[in-house]
């Protein structure tokens, strides 16, 4: 049991600290191949690239839109009970959330078709986790305060809303430059699910009223469901004291990650379109897909309605059966009215969280020769291809939307990108979303010959005290890139 609790807490902590809502710095950062993963229709300047396995794309982010670690654990002399009560239990709303996705590039590569240089292919494998948990406001208050002195108050069960998964993704994409202005791309994906859980359609309430007969009545109206796949086997390993759970879990995860889990299909699409020589609009739709769960599936459901006023003995009817067990009858009646079903065989389909990106970019200031003349002197071209990165500056805006159980969440970013010679490119962003309105980010791309290294940090103002930050992140990666011969 302790191991199971540890595992669940570790998972929650993982999703708590590995938190990626948005890759606004990386988006349309054309010098970095991993940007293709968030817009398969990005303009691609490479001849080929290869990511350093497991190092080509790492992103870690932390965040919460409600309270911070500092709000509760600051050494400020305030009683923690007061802080939890005011800042968490009664300070958070049911729309507050802890959510995120993360990606870890395991393998990533791409190459340009020699015969059709307008085609660029990319492929790879990445591990992705995605989870969201909304603050269960009414249930938290019920758990913290209880139902005393709350006559008539309905504690809303729909406040319990959560879903999450860990999935390994195999992908192959085609990026095609259709003409001078339009580049499109699509990426097919095979999902191999490691585990999945979902409890998002809960309804009902719990209320205490004055009783019709007795002093109080407690009413439960519930329509709640939790669907999981892949968790029971994990649970069994954690419960089995005869085996070392670490290697056993690693083996299980490896098997499921390599197409041994529940499988699904998905697609990403994207485009870049030049409105004129200096203005470009882009867009992408990611993870339009599903996973069909047939293995290690469990469905837990609580559905029904019951009102209880304690053990009721009404004479003379109660005299008819002197041996009646009124308590057990009450328990049986409630269990019949609100049955708890635990079904291990119901297959189900889960949909991936769809993400939408859109941007507009304005490029300006062409590179100059040492004598100050305009030149087409960017080395990032192959053969007769034109370089898509032929301006020193870019400025623009980016919109990100992700589908979540309580509806879409959006983030709006303004960015400025500056290229310094051939080796360095910097990008600064300002982002506003439901988590923070003071998110300033900075990304840096270094190109040393074929070696490409990028590093990005988000919400830099939060770095003054990470414990008090609603959002902090960094991304980094290492690639080998060939731009082809000029």
């Amino acid at each position, binding site marked *: 049991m302790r191991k199971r609790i540890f595992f669940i807490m570790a998972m929650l902590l993982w999703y708590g600290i590995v938190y990626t809502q948005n890759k606004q710095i990386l988006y349309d950062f054309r010098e970095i191949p991993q940007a293709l993963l968030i817009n398969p229709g990005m303009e691609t300047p490479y001849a080929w690239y290869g990511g350093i396995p497991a190092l080509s794309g790492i992103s870690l982010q932390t965040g919460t839109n409600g309270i911070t*670690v*500092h709000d*509760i*654990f*600051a*050494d400020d002399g305030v*009683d*923690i*009970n007061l802080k*939890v009560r005011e800042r968490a239990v009664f300070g958070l709303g049911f729309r507050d959330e802890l959510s995120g996705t993360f990606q870890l590039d395991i393998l990533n590569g791409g190459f340009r078709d020699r015969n059709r240089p307008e085609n660029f292919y990319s492929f790879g494998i990445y591990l992705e986790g995605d989870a969201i948990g909304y603050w269960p406001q009414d249930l938290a208050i*019920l*758990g*913290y*305060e*209880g*139902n*005393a*002195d709350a006559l008539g108050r309905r504690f809303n069960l729909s406040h319990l809303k959560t879903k999450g998964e860990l999935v390994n993704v195999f992908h192959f994409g085609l990026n095609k430059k259709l003409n001078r202005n339009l580049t499109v791309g699509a990426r097919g994906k095979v999902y191999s699910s490691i585990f999945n859980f979902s409890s998002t359609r809960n309804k009902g309430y719990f209320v*205490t009223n004055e*009783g019709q*007969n*007795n*002093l*109080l*009545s*407690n009413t439960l109206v519930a329509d709640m469901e939790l669907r999981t796949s892949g968790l029971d086997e994990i649970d069994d390993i954690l419960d089995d004291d005869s085996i070392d759970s670490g290697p056993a879990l690693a083996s299980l995860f490896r098997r499921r990650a390599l197409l041994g889990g529940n499988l699904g299909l998905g697609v990403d699409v994207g485009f870049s379109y030049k409105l004129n020589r200096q203005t470009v609009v882009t867009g992408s739709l990611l993870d339009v897909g599903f996973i069909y769960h047939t293995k290690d599936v469990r469905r837990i459901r609580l559905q029904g309605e019951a009102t*209880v*006023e*304690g*053990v*009721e*003995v*009404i*004479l*003379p009817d*109660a*005299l008819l059966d*002197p041996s009646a*067990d*009124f*308590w*057990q009858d009450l328990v049986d009646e409630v269990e019949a009215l609100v049955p708890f079903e635990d079904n291990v065989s119901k297959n189900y389909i889960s949909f991936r969280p769809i993400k939408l990106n859109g941007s507009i970019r304005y490029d300006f200031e062409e590179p100059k020769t040492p004598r100050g003349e305009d030149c087409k002197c960017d080395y990032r071209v192959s053969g007769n291809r034109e370089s898509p990165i032929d301006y020193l500056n870019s400025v623009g805006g980016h919109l990100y939307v992700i589908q979540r159980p309580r509806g879409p969440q959006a983030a709006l970013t303004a960015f400025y990108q500056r290229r*310094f010679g051939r080796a*360095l490119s*910097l990008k600064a962003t300002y982002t506003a979303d439901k988590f923070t309105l003071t998110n300033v980010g*900075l990304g*840096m791309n270094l190109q040393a010959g074929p070696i490409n290294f990028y590093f990005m*940090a988000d919400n*830099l103002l939060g*770095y*003054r*005290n*990470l*414990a*008090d930050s609603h959002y*902090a992140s*960094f991304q980094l990666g290492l690639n080998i890139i060939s731009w082809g011969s000029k």
Partner: protein
Amino acid sequence: MKNGLIYLLLGFALVCSSACVEEQDFDQLEDLQVTPTIEASILYIESPESVINLATGISFYANTFNFDAFNETFFADKVLDGVVIYEVENTTSKELDITVEFLDEAGNALDIEQFSVNPAPTALLRTEIAYGPGGRSLDIIRNTSAIRVSATNLGDNTSVSNLPDPKIILRSSGRFRIELVQ
């Protein structure tokens, strides 16, 4: 241009390297207490006057009920204090005695509460019994696995109250504070 680049890089490095975490006191968790108060009805008994008149002796009702709510491990281990509230309403023409006993698994009486109610018209009789610090022992609650109720008619077997639908009613509820986290 070179100077600008250097300043930019220095600024970036400075921001990233100056990230700090103000010291947090996670030991505060040991002081965290989550102690909700829960309340629910316990027992409701109702008898019309006609049933009381049918009984041949003075005791017209006696029964022992299995009641496992209090000694469920989750509740028994976490209960801190509480109150049991009784309300007796008598609209019959008789003086009645009602006794409620909390019994342990062996049938031993852990606690006894007796109510003497006058014939109608009479005021609602309400009693609150506290358990825990300042009240009766919490062990009574923790070890209760049955409730015995007996009712005695101290009047006659023929009279009928003028009030509509005369009855004796015992209502009860519990209100307990439990310790979820400490």
